[in-house]
């Protein structure tokens, strides 16, 4: 892999902890994500994956440790702040408004306006449609009807829209929580190829999945969590399914 070592990490997590009362959901956890790198996060249910990504994306404040973006320490009070800094989370349950078009979803909450008749502010649907077309084109996703609501699209296509939104707003780090769950096999392949696109654009991806096949198909490294601590970290090229499973269950 070209990205290991020299370059400044896009994201670095140092000794991160999160305690809920006596429960140590995450304990002294460290990892890095470099530009153009896909890091898989694996672990059983309750291992701390969700806690970790919520701390990185600003949903929780960590109890201890620090988060560095391109070497600079950062703290996020809200998910909004994390997003402003280029960390976008793609949720499993798709944060899309199904009744709106691709463009409207990409711009949801930040809609461009134009002046009709020189004075009346109206939504600039044309700008939204053009940006949607261009962005989805970058993901090798071609749509004929840009005004159709996203409910008309398949699960994989909607996943692509969610990723497209992150790409349009220039997210540098994408956290993808089970992006291939609830999709058919061809759709899963499409999402995997989308992740390859993101990688080739130099973005960092944190990829969470239960599916080891997907993890091996797309990741550069795998970090395994167990009971809130790092159970191991391997280069994908230097490990195999059995070893990862052993790390996950603690064999």
């Amino acid at each position, binding site marked *: 892999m070209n990205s290991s070592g020299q370059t400044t990490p896009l994201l670095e997590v140092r000794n991160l902890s999160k305690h809920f009362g006596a429960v140590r959901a995450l304990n002294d956890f460290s990892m890095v994500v470099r530009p153009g790198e896909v890091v898989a996060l694996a672990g059983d249910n309750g291992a701390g994956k969700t806690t970790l990504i919520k701390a990185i994306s600003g949903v929780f404040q960590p109890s201890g440790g620090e988060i560095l973006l391109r070497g600079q320490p950062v703290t996020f009070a809200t998910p909004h702040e994390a997003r402003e800094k280029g960390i976008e989370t793609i*949720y499993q349950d798709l944060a*899309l408004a*199904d009744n709106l078009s691709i463009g409207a979803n990409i711009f*949801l*909450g930040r809609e461009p306006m134009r002046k*009709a008749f020189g004075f009346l502010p109206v939504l600039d649907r044309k700008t939204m449609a053009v940006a949607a077309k261009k962005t989805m084109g970058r993901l090798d996703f071609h749509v004929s009807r840009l005004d*159709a609501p996203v409910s008309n699209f*398949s699960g994989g296509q909607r996943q692509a829209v969610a990723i497209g939104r992150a790409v349009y707003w220039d997210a540098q780090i994408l956290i993808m929580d089970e992006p291939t769950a609830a999709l058919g096999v*061809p759709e899963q392949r499409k999402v995997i190829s989308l992740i390859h696109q993101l990688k080739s654009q130099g973005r960092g991806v944190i990829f969470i999945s239960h599916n080891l096949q997907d993890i091996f198909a797309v990741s550069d490294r795998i970090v395994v969590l167990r009971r809130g601590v790092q159970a191991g970290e391997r280069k994908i090229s230097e490990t195999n399914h059995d070893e990862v499973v052993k790390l996950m269950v603690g064999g």
Partner: protein
Amino acid sequence: MTSTSPIEQSETHIAPQADHGDPARTWLARIAEGRAWLFLAGLIICFEVWSRLSFGATFMLNPFNLQSIAIFAVAPLLLATGQTFVIISGGIDLSLGFIMGLAAVVAAHATNMAGAVIPLPLAMLAGILAAVIVAGVPGVINGLLISRLRVPPFIGTLGMFGVARGVAFLLAGGTTVPVQNSWFALLGNGRLYGVPYLVIIAAVFVVVMHYILSQTRFGQHNYAIGANVQAARRAGIDIRGHTLRLYVLSAMCAGLGGALYAARFTAGAAQAGEPLLLDSVAAVVIGGASLFGGSGTIFGTVAGALVIAVIQYGLVFVNVEPFWQFIAVGFVIIISVLIDQAQRRFSGARQDE
């Protein structure tokens, strides 16, 4: 159905599903979207034939009938435009009827009081303004209950239904409040080139509301919240602020409705909007909005309000016992929802392929 099988699709990149251009689906969707206007056209033809056969008289070509239907539709339409916004967001506002009554009483009192000290046209404007502002108060309370205290809209606005009703009757002293203002009476009953002022005001108002719903961020966010609150929140939309503004907007629509009621009858009555609340919900549903939120348009609601007005006026015109009105409107609501569901099921089945 098209010839593209799922396997073929998976081998190329995922092409947009071929059913987008499917003429059958597109037609069904169009019919479902425009069903309120189809209902309206059907009803008008029905009454025209009925009227000609039974009485040898025209129904729709009679300008007096047109005016009456239009005036009939104004008050429910004003409530229904506000209700459209609320229902699209996934809520409901049950307090609108008595907010309208409250506003009618306030408009009457305020116009009379202002008339004692300032010229009559200004007093009229002061009365309308007072009605709209006072109507905003229960709207603010609704909005705060729903957005801050997370009271379900059905319950919160049901409570406000009672409060507004009580306050309106107290202010009115349990009776109707006559208005002494010739300008106000003219506004409610005068015409411009044969078109009642009330209808002109309602038409302008509808255009403004359509603009807000379809062309502004507020309208766009309203659709997004109705479809997926989580998504809207994650996209950084201020849900609380939006909800507050939403219920104030709907209450103010009812406020304007109350002021125009007071103008039409030159009196304010607490029970002014009592029968109109359910008509407003019916108009929105007939107009194509889903009670689950996320869909609906102002022009659909206009058609819905006209359907109800035509049924009510038309049945009286052809001399049918008035109780049939309720039955007819009830049927239209049920058929309308059935069409909506059929269309959803059809497009939903396509989606799962």
